[in-house]
């Protein structure tokens, strides 16, 4: 079982990295590009949990460590391998 965790900067938080990436994409003539926000993608291998237990445990992991709620949002999906 695998948890795919996505952590992104909150909308209200300035994301200078995303902004710099957007400028570079514009420099490459991708004029269709609007805002870019840069976050993190984590793959967490899980064993011995039901799908429902995994949902609860990963939610807790995100709140305690993987994301900082002051500056980041998170979402995740649990997939069977």
């Amino acid at each position: 079982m695998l948890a795919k965790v996505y952590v992104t900067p909150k909308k209200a938080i300035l994301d200078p990295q995303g902004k710099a990436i957007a400028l570079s994409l514009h420099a490459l003539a991708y004029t269709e590009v609007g805002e870019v926000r840069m976050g993190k993608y984590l793959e967490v291998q899980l064993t011995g949990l039901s799908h429902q237990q995994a949902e609860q445990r990963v939610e807790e992991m995100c709140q305690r460590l993987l994301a900082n709620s002051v500056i980041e949002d998170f979402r995740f999906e649990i997939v069977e391998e």
Partner: protein
Amino acid sequence: MKWGIVTFPGSNDDRDAWYCLETVLGQEAVLLWHKDQDLQGVEAIVLPGGFSYGDYLRAGALARFSPIMHSVVDFANAGGPVLGVCNGFQILCESGLLPGALVRNRSLSFICEWVSIRVETTRTRFTSACSAGECLSIPIKHGEGCYVADTDTVQSLTDNDQIVFRYVNEAGEAERAANPNGALHNIAGVTNPNGNVVGLMPHPEHAVEALLGGEDGRKLFTSVFA
């Protein structure tokens, strides 16, 4: 007075803090290892600068779960003086001892320079030897020093006199041009409601001798024992 300085894997200002306290200021200072829980009877704690745990995940995010941090949190909650400098400030925010968070500098550049910071409150354990509005010349060196917090948090920081330092210009004004990293309202340091826990991005331990470029940093330490 006996001070403890925590060494995490990746700390690099722990010895500077030790030198500042023991050699320059004549205090007793011990290095506390991150895997230990015994605070060895220290009466004040410094969380030094550096890149604890390689800044993996987020600056300070992993250090916060070190065994020593359980003791540091208990010590702080019991009113013990705790100073977090740079990475130490990031750890204090991650551990919830201080509100807000520190993110990548707005310029995306690592900044290493002397800045002027204004003392906003003298009620903390680390600013009682300063006068309100006094400006201190202290160096910064960081890539992630942009202080952020939500609107409600900033309002409560203001209402409870928890903003300790702001970046200012030569005239002592907290203007945008004097803000090196994009920090909200030029905030360089904050405290907890009790004033015993202080975190700041500038490095007072690097400003304790004329040879180093200035002595203004001494006041943060002498505030505790003088």
